[in-house]
């Protein structure tokens, strides 16, 4: 008996979302050039600490900013050098390998136009492509897709975009049809969610707190339920250890890649990974963030391998709603911030670069004396990808796809 066994099968979902209809073909202009590009967008929900992922080891203020929490080239867990200035979190050897073979780029000190610090609103701006939250029910990726067939000549029966997860990410919602796929393995409540709930109980209900605490303690015994535990036969109750998170990331991303790789499959897709809100014990070099980045790195490997022959037509854009405070907070974590990184991965890239107009880390150089200052508008990156990879026309990019972005010039040369 298990809850997950009652989840609908993949086939049921495909039928339910109308995805058994033929999918529309893809970027017409790109096709005319003999290409068949794929784009997958991964949203990291919770706000990724860009400095914990890609460390400015060449910045003279780096060590003083983060102290013993700073990733360094000669630390116990040495960061992986990218160039003379930046180094990658040691949890990401795949990304490092792709970067060195020019199949990955990193954009640093980037942000959407959103300057407040609410997750929901931040994700709304990130995914809608608008400058204000709550303004629309469609996402920039879907509108870009719609724009590709000018005059709205999109076959309404065709599913052109792929959404992964029970909730179709906003970025891919809109007029162009979407097919969705829900991973069979559901991610159980994260350690972060459990910690927050425990904190809530400790302030409001000691009895519930002690029960939850006991459960978490049990779960922390390296995933092995205690002997005689009546719950031990239930697979859904295994703790959400890092092994499960890794498996989930790889499974979800790998499946997205399999669909995108099909000759008649969708050509763009989107998915979200949660858990990046590292307020307490962030653990960039060993711990929470290290583990999550490792899982993300595994997802890159799964995508590369499942894309197979079309890897050279692939771009994966990994984005997050905003960054985190430059300094470590009082609980060895980081709070909501502004500037962060975006990862670009895929065989279609002209990669091997960290794209950054580095703002510096001195107090006066930080945004509001607390966050990494954003110097690259994330929309410039996305517009560059949509234009050069999918061939969405620039006037549409500045109009319906990213409204009010005429003065944000697309970054050229990202794809090869």
């Amino acid at each position, binding site marked *: *008996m*298990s*809850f997950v066994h009652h989840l609908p099968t993949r086939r049921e979902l495909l039928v339910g979302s109308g995805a058994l209809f033929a999918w529309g073909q893809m970027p017409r202009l790109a096709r005319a050039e003999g290409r068949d590009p794929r784009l997958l967008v991964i949203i990291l929900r919770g706000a990724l600490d860009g400095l914990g992922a890609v460390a400015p080891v060449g910045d003279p203020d780096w060590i003083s900013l983060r102290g013993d929490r700073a990733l360094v080239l000669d630390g116990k867990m040495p960061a992986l050098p990218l160039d003379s200035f930046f180094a990658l979190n040691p949890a990401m050897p795949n990304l490092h390998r792709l970067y060195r073979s020019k199949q990955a780029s990193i954009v640093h000190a980037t942000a959407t136009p959103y300057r407040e610090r609410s*997750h929901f609103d931040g994700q709304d701006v990130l995914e809608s492509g608008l400058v204000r939250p709550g303004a629309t029910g469609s996402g920039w990726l879907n509108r870009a897709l719609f724009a590709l067939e000018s005059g709205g000549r999109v076959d309404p029966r065709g599913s052109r975009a792929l959404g992964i997860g*029970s909730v179709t990410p906003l970025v891919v919602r809109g007029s162009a049809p979407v097919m969705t796929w829900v991973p069979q393995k559901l991610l159980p409540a994260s350690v972060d969610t459990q910690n*927050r709930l425990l904190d*809530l109980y400790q302030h409001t209900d000691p009895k519930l707190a002690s029960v939850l605490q006991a459960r978490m303690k049990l779960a922390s015994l390296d995933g092995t339920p205690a002997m005689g535990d009546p719950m031990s036969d239930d697979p859904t109750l295994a703790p959400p250890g890092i092994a499960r998170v890794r498996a989930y990331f790889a499974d979800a991303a790998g499946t997205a890649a399999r669909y995108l790789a099909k000759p008649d499959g969708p050509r763009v897709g989107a998915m979200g990974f*949660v858990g990046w809100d590292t307020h307490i014990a962030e653990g960039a070099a060993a711990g929470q963030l290290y583990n999550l980045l490792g899982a993300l790195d595994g997802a890159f490997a799964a995508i590369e391998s499942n894309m197979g022959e079309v890897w050279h037509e692939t771009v994966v854009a990994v984005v997050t709603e905003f960054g985190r405070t430059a300094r470590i907070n009082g609980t060895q974590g980081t709070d909501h911030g502004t500037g962060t990184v975006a990862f670009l991965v895929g065989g279609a890239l002209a990669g091997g670069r960290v794209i950054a107009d580095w703002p510096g880390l001195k107090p006066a150089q930080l945004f509001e004396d607390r966050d990494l200052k954003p110097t690259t508008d994330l929309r410039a990156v996305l517009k560059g990808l949509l234009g050069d990879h999918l061939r969405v026309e620039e006037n549409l990019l500045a109009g319906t796809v990213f409204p009010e972005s005429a003065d944000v010039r697309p970054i050229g040369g990202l794809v090869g």
Partner: protein
Amino acid sequence: MSNSAKAEAVLALHRFGMGPRPGSIAALGTDPRGALIAELNRPLALAAAAGLPSSAKAFRTVADANARRTARAKQAQQQAKKQQMAAAPAMSEHQNQGQAQAQIQGQTQGQAQGQSEEKDAAEMAAKKAAEAIPDPGRPIYLQEAKVRTEAALAADIGFAERLVWFWSNHFCVSANKIQSMSGAYERETVRANALGRFVDLLMAVESHPAMLFYLDNLDSMGANSTAGINRSRGLNENFARETMELHTLGVRTGYTQDDVISFANVLTGWTLVPPGVDPQHGGEFTFNPRLHEPGGQTVLGKRYDQEDVEQGRAVLRDLAAHPATATHVATKLAHHFVADEPPPTLVEQMAKTFRDTEGDLKQVAIAMVSSDEAWRGPPSKLKRPGEWVVGMVRATGITQVDPVRYTGGQELLGEALWRPSSPKGYPDDEASWIDGVGRRLDVANYFAERVAGIADPQAIIENVFASEVAGEVKQAVDRAESRQQALALLFMSADFQRR
């Protein structure tokens, strides 16, 4: 709406109802107690159940399918055997060779193996043929579950539905034993009488085929009855004991083992029409005099000399009117709705209403919500899994459920629908459920993921608490990293789980 009226509306919905839906709190206005009582004056019947089979019909459908399955299996087995016989000459030649060889080698196991393979093939054919006829019990169960759950989702407040759930658990049967009838049983007995008189509810329950089946009364026969003498069989005390211990008087209220035996004798002959013999009435209740112990019986010091089904009815009427039953019922109701240790004066007031009105259950329910004591205590009750899940769904405004998913979730949470592990039903105290909080978190997380696209956590916190919620909960929802996390924390908060 004043703050205190709002607080009382929130409490009314959580403690006595199925939990707030969007707009529920405002709709209760300034008189939540009046709104609760008003809901009891509306009919409990379910329009959506019109297409569902009666319990007897459901039982016949399953019995028919079982009979056809047996026939098919037999047929397939015979056919497989015939085919093997046809192939036998060649086989025996082969076997002779084999035997000769085996003798040389000093082995004989090859032959034995060949025979068991033949048998296996016939059994496989039979099994396959039987599986071609699916069990109709499960789809009926799921459809009943859907109708019942959606009634809880559709109710304005859900006080009446909560009473249906309460009485269904008080008079529980188990779908593990009678899957096809479990939903119809609830509709035909509890839903029909939960706001009527206890004696009518009791009579409907104890003469229902599902209950008689569940508590093993179908084949209970008097030692001196015709059937008992002919078949040398006798009494099963289960039904009589549970009727006194669980359904009416309550445990340790003065009845003796002799009372149980006498009452069991009284109830012999309460059985059902075998589904195979009567296509019209199979599966319905019947009194079979051939099973009934002849003569009068004494139960709780009173002599019952009736000769037939009236003997049992007379005992049940007296049990329903017994003061111990009034106290038992009042205690259980207050324990379910108000507190694990309800105020004794509240219980006594409800018991008195029960006695004064000859067990008018609507008046008992009204007495409960009219008493200040039912409102005064802190929200200490931990919602049962069913209430909690329905409460989550209601909070989002969703009105339909997938019964496979819903019943799967209930099972995971330890409160499988209509499947309690004993006739005592599911427990109602915090100690029994609190260790399941971890499972709840998994379910909340899963549900939150599913609805995060349509549910705004800020709107939902307003839906379910108005402003009557701990600041810490608001803060946790505000600071969550995603809508999913915000919703999971909200549904898991003590404010949402306790009432």
